[in-house]
């Protein structure tokens, strides 16, 4: 089974002016197959950096990423990424975007057709297959991005604020979609978000990170994601523990943000 091991990863950015930023320090995590983990943390605490390292876009200065007992040395098709926005290919139709992964592997269009069309149905874009990307709304574009990632059948799906640019209603629908897809496909998912609600609803496991240096601050195991599968997310929000956990985490992040604001910028 696919197991993702983040082993004592540190990341240090050298700055052109001679200083440096310790974006991550000794982060270790063990993510089981099929786990849905959401990551929260104040801005600049290294969430994107961590995700980029897992994806293989960045090499950590220390430590390793191990997926299925193999060390990660670069990006590859076993780790799919859903970006916040702007990562779709405008020169391709919706269908061509979604079948990009299979195309690259040399799978013929005829072979991939069925799966691609199925995925487009699942994300509710069955009628938009031949449309151009710029003809879609922001929410539809994110669904294309999700379908494109799934069409490639990765072991791990990495999402960096995938719903950040959407309005509240579309966002809620997409959250339901993510949960359903997670349960249906059994993929390992790491999801970065700025919204505490989203982290609570979607995270089976929730990681709160702290800044300067970026590190794991606290971990939660949550029941809401399971409750949310196939259910109305608004019902889940009425769960007795929901409000209290939310307050606790908000409190935590606020105090961290305040600490950053109060502290003068030091890049050493």
């Amino acid at each position, binding site marked *: 089974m696919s197991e993702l091991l983040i082993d004592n990863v540190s990341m240090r950015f050298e700055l052109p002016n001679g200083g440096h930023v310790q974006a991550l320090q000794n982060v270790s995590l063990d993510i089981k197959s099929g786990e849905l983990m959401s990551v929260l943390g104040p801005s600049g605490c290294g969430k994107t950096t961590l995700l*980029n390292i897992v*994806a*293989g*876009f960045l090499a950590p200065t220390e430590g390793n990423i191990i997926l299925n007992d193999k060390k990660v040395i*670069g*990006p*590859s*098709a076993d*780790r*799919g*990424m859903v*970006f916040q926005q*702007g*990562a*779709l*290919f*405008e*020169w391709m139709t919706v269908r061509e975007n979604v079948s*990009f*992964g299979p195309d*690259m*592997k040399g799978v013929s269009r005829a072979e991939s057709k069925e799966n691609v069309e199925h995925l487009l149905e699942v994300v509710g874009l069955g009628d938009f297959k031949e449309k*151009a*990307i*710029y003809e879609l709304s922001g929410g539809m574009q994110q669904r294309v991005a999700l379908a*494109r*990632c799934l069409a*490639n059948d*990765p072991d791990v799906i*990495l999402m960096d604020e995938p719903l950040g640019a959407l309005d509240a209603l579309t966002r809620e629908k997409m959250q339901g979609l993510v949960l359903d897809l997670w349960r249906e496909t059994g993929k390992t998912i790491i999801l970065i978000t700025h919204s505490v609600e989203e982290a609570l609803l979607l995270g089976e496991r929730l990681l709160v990170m702290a800044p300067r240096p970026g590190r794991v601050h606290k971990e939660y195991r949550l029941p809401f994601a399971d409750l949310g599968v196939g259910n109305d997310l608004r019902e889940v929000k009425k769960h007795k523990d929901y409000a209290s956990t939310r307050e606790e985490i908000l409190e935590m992040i606020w105090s961290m943000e305040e600490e950053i604001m109060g502290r003068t910028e030091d890049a050493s």
Partner: protein
Amino acid sequence: MSGFIIFALYLVAFFGSYLVLSRLLSKYFQREGFNSLKTVTFGDESAVKANRIASIISVATVFWLWVAFTNSAIPLPKLPGPFQGDATFTYTATLEDGTSDDATVTVRVYREDIQQTVDAEGNPGREPDAPEVEPGDGFAKNDTLTAARYSFKVLNVWSNDEVSKKGGSTVTAINGIPIAPGEKIDIPEGTVGLTDKGTPTFAPATGLRMARLYLPAPEVVMERFIRLNKEGYQGFTLWEHTWKSVSRVLWGFLLGSLIGIPLGYAMGLTNWSRGWFDPIVEFMRPVPPLALIPLMIIWFGIGEVSKVILLFLAALWIMIIAARSGVSGVAIAKVHAAYSLGASKWQILSKVIVPNSLPEIFTGARVAMGVCWGTVVAAELVAAEVGLGKMIVVASKFQLTDIVLVGIILIGVIGFLIDVGVRALETWLVPWKGKV
């Protein structure tokens, strides 16, 4: 003088037609609802749309100004024209002993372009004969003169007189008004004067229109265009002149793109290429292609090769820079997405970087085409055997301003068509441009 009148008339046409039309067609001019508020955000591209009525009137205004300042046959309001026809004035000759005598000068003023006109039978026009006049009495005899419009004539009035200038006869008055050497007197048909040595001169009134030599009328240019189509010029048909210029541009641009785009990609993708070509590109970029014309002529002569190489160089740097910034401009998220979807480097290049750079390349192509078109005409002006620029420069040596204008209009129209063509290709191939 004419310049100020043109400018003033143009301003009047601009504001006047706006005021008149916005009253008459108030519906069309009214911005309604939110659109009326949109201009609040000045510079919002989408808030400003060309008013096509204004465009039509603008073109009509330029045409009308053209007619108004020439001796055109087109029935539109025109500025006061030059005098044409017969005019007379008298001069008073005075002898040393104080006796004087009057005589009349009859001037026949004819079209300055008479030889370029054709009568009903197809014969070219000739200069008219001098009017016939009686010699009259007294020692000063009546004179005749023929003068073209816009010309200036010196008239030896003594040639038929009984007392010559050497014999002591001087002109002391014109139409009874005393005049001294170096002075001038305006009569309705022109200006009569005396040279510093006392010889009478006559210049027909010019009005405010321009002579054919300076600005031929629209119909003259049109006729010339038709004739050029039939007869060609300098041994080549008009079509050959035009096509030669266009084909030089196409070849130069094609070669420039063929070499420039891959070089630009290389510069955008590898450190070595970027470092290697950077100095050359940065050095050559600010050198205007026109400055290379002399070198091209020295190296490659005045034939096709030198033109095509010049245009190739004109297009090359532009296309290199366009391709380079097209590559550098790719959003890193797209490259990352492609990598994590399993694309190889080569696939990323062909499926992501190249299509992503197309909008930039098309922008570059439009600029390059414009520069090439300007450069080819200039190069042909300097030296060529055939081409629109060559046609213009030869015609200007023979003062055939109508051919020069035909050439300029063709150059403008073709330049415009080239741009329209590239833009059409762009909307077809890069429909997403400006929409993401």
